[in-house]
C-alpha cells in the first residue's frame, strides 16, 4: 500500500509540475547577448534604467561610465561613493525586495552569480529583463564582463579605454616582477572568528590568483589545499610558516597586534618579523575592475623594494 502511495505521490509531483513558464518579449531588438544561465537577453536599445544586484556589478557599471543609468542597487554596493544615495533593493541573506525592484521600473536588472536562478526566474516572471553575469575566474574573463556590460549599456568605447588602461597597469606590475626569485609564502586571512581555524582563499579564487601574480606563493598552494575557501588549522599554518600575513578581515576588526596576541601564532615568521598587513578584501573578492587595484597593492606589500 505504501509503495502505491509513494508512486502516486511521485506521479502527481510530475503532473502538477507542468505549468507554462515563458513570456516572450516583443519589440525590435538592438542588443542581444547570451548570459551566464545560457539565456539570450534582448534589449530594444542600451539599457537606461538599471538595477544592480551585486556590488561587483555596480562597480563595473560605474567604471565603464554607465553610472548615471543606474537607478537602484543591492544593499552591499558601497563603491564608488555616488551609489550610496541610490535606493537599495535589499540583498541581505539573499533576500531582495521584488516590490522595490518593480517600483524602480528598470529596463535591465543586472544579476550576478550570488543571485539564485530562482530569483532570476521570479524577476523574469514580473516581466523584467534580467541579465545574469557570471563570475570571472581570470582577469581576461573580467575584461570580457566589462565588454558585456558595456554592450548592454551602450558604453563600448569607454570600456575599451578602461580595458586598455587596466591591461597596461597589469603589464607594468608584471614587468617589475619579471625577475623576482624570492617568492614569500602569503597567508591571506578571510575570517578568523576562530583563530585556531581561520578561513583563507584557495585555488580558483582571485585571492589566490592575485597573490601568485603579485609574486607570492599563496598559503593554500604551499600547503597543497584544493578547496576554494578552506578553513585551515593553526597547526597547518605553523608548519607551512608564511612570511607574510594579509588581513582581509581588517574591516571586521582584525589587527596586527591582535594577531600577535593570539596564542600559538608567535612562532610564525610573519608574526615574528611584524609582516602583518591590513587589506581591503573588496579588492580581491569583488570580481570587477578594482581587482587590478588589488593586484597593485598586493605586489607592493609583497615586494616593497621594487615599488619605491
Amino acid at each position, binding site marked *: 500500500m*505504501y509503495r502505491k*502511495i*509513494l508512486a502516486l*505521490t*511521485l506521479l*502527481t*509531483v510530475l503532473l*502538477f*509540475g507542468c*505549468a507554462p*513558464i515563458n513570456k516572450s518579449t516583443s519589440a525590435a531588438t538592438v542588443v542581444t547577448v547570451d548570459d551566464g*544561465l*545560457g*539565456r539570450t537577453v534582448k534589449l530594444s536599445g542600451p539599457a537606461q534604467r538599471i538595477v544592480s544586484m551585486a556590488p561587483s556589478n555596480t562597480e563595473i557599471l560605474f567604471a565603464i561610465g554607465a553610472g548615471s543609468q543606474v537607478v537602484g542597487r543591492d*544593499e552591499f554596493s558601497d563603491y564608488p561613493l555616488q551609489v550610496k544615495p541610490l*535606493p*537599495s*533593493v*535589499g*540583498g*541581505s*541573506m*539573499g*533576500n*531582495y*525586495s*521584488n*516590490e*522595490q525592484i*518593480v*517600483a524602480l*521600473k528598470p529596463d535591465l536588472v543586472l544579476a550576478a552569480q*550570488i543571485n*539564485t*536562478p*530562482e*530569483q*532570476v*526566474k*521570479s524577476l523574469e*516572471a*514580473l*516581466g523584467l529583463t534580467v541579465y545574469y553575469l557570471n563570475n570571472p575566474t581570470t582577469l581576461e574573463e573580467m575584461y570580457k564582463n566589462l565588454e558585456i556590460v558595456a554592450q548592454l549599456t551602450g558604453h563600448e568605447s569607454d570600456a575599451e579605454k578602461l580595458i586598455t588602461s587596466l591591461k597596461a597597469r597589469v603589464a607594468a606590475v608584471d614587468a617589475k616582477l619579471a625577475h623576482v626569485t624570492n617568492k614569500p609564502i602569503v597567508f591571506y586571512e578571510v575570517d578568523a572568528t576562530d583563530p585556531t581555524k581561520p578561513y583563507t582563499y584557495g585555488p580558483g579564487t582571485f585571492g589566490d590568483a592575485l597573490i601568485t601574480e603579485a609574486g607570492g606563493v599563496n598559503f593554500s598552494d604551499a600547503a597543497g589545499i584544493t*578547496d*576554494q*575557501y578552506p*578553513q585551515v588549522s593553526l597547526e597547518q599554518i605553523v608548519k607551512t610558516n608564511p612570511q607574510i600575513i594579509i588581513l582581509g578581515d581588517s574591516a571586521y576588526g582584525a589587527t596586527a597586534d591582535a594577531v600577535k596576541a593570539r596564542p600559538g601564532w608567535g612562532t610564525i615568521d610573519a608574526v615574528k618579523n611584524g609582516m602583518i598587513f591590513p587589506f581591503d578584501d573588496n579588492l580581491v573578492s569583488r570580481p570587477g575592475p578594482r581587482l587590478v587595484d588589488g593586484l597593485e597593492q598586493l605586489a607592493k606589500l609583497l615586494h616593497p623594494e621594487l615599488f619605491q
Partner: protein
Amino acid sequence: MKIRPYLFSLLALGLALILSLAIGSVFLSPAQLWDTLIGHGTQVSNAILWDIRLPRTILVALTGMALGGSGAAYQGLFRNPLADPFLIGVASGAGLGAVVAMSIQWPYSFWGLMAIPMAAFVAGLFTIFIVYALARVGKTIPTTNLILAGVAFSAFATSLTSFLMLRSTNDVRRALGWLLGGATQSGWTAILAIVPYLIIGLGILTFSGHALNLLQFGDEQAQQLGLNVTRSKTILLIAASLATAAAVAFSGIIGFIGLIVPHVMRLWFGADYRRLILLSIIGGAAALIVSDVVARVVIAPQEIPVGIVTALVGAPFFLWVLRRAKNQGYW
C-alpha cells in the same frame, strides 16, 4: 456545533490577508490600493499587488495551513505537547534533499528550477517512510519508537546537511535562506504545485478528529473503543507529512507555527480534535501571514527570513497565552 471559534479565527485570517496585501516594502496608499483592486491601477501597482503580494500571501497562507493543521495532528497522534510537524524528520529530510539538489548545477529551465523543491518534497516523504519502517514492531507502531527513530534519523540528516553546506561554500547563502524559511520562488507555479497535496492531506486530517480524540486514551483503550489504531496512525502520519512536505518544498523550513498555533487554539477553544484541527489550519494561516508581513517590513526594503520572525514573535506570544491559562490544567 459551536460557531464562534470559527467566526473568530476566520475574522483573524481575513484581517491578516488584508494586512498582507496592504503592507509591503513599497508603500501603496489606501487610495492606490483601492484603485488597483478595482482595476484602475498603474503598471507598477498592478505588478506589486497582483504579481508579487497576492501569490506570496497565498503561498504563505497555504504553508501556514499545512503547518498548523499537521502540528495539531502530530500533537494528538504522539500525545506529546512538544510534537510539531517536523518532529519525526520531514524538515531534516527535506532540507537534506534540497541541499543535495543545490549542489548540482541545474539548467535554467522549468524542470531545472523545479529540481530543488521536488528533491525536498521527495526526500521529506522518503524520510517518513524510513522512520515508519524503523519504528514498526510487528503490526504495531509504538509512539515512543516513532519519536525515537524520527529524532535519531533527523539528527543524522541534519548533520549531513551541515557537512554538505560546509563543503559547498558557493551555495551556503542559498541553502541557509531555504533552511530559514525564505519563500524563494514565489509565484503561481508553487501554489499550483502544492495545492493538491494540501487538499488531500489537510482534508484527511480535518475528518480525523474523532480518531484523534480516541487516541488520547492510549493505544489499548482506543483499540477497545473500536478504533483500528495502527491504520489510523498510519493514515494520520501520511496525511500530515504529505501536507508538511509539500509546503516545505517551496517555503523552506519554518519553525514554531506548527508547535504553538495548535496550543493557542487548544487554550482558547478546547481540546476537542474535531474542532482543533480545522481551527489550527485557519490559525496557522493567519499567524504565518502576519509573521511574513513583519518579515517584509521590519528592515524594509531588506527582508528577513520568516522563520526568524515566527520564533521571535511567536515565543513571547505563546508564553503570554500560556501564562494567562496557567490555572486551567490544560494538556
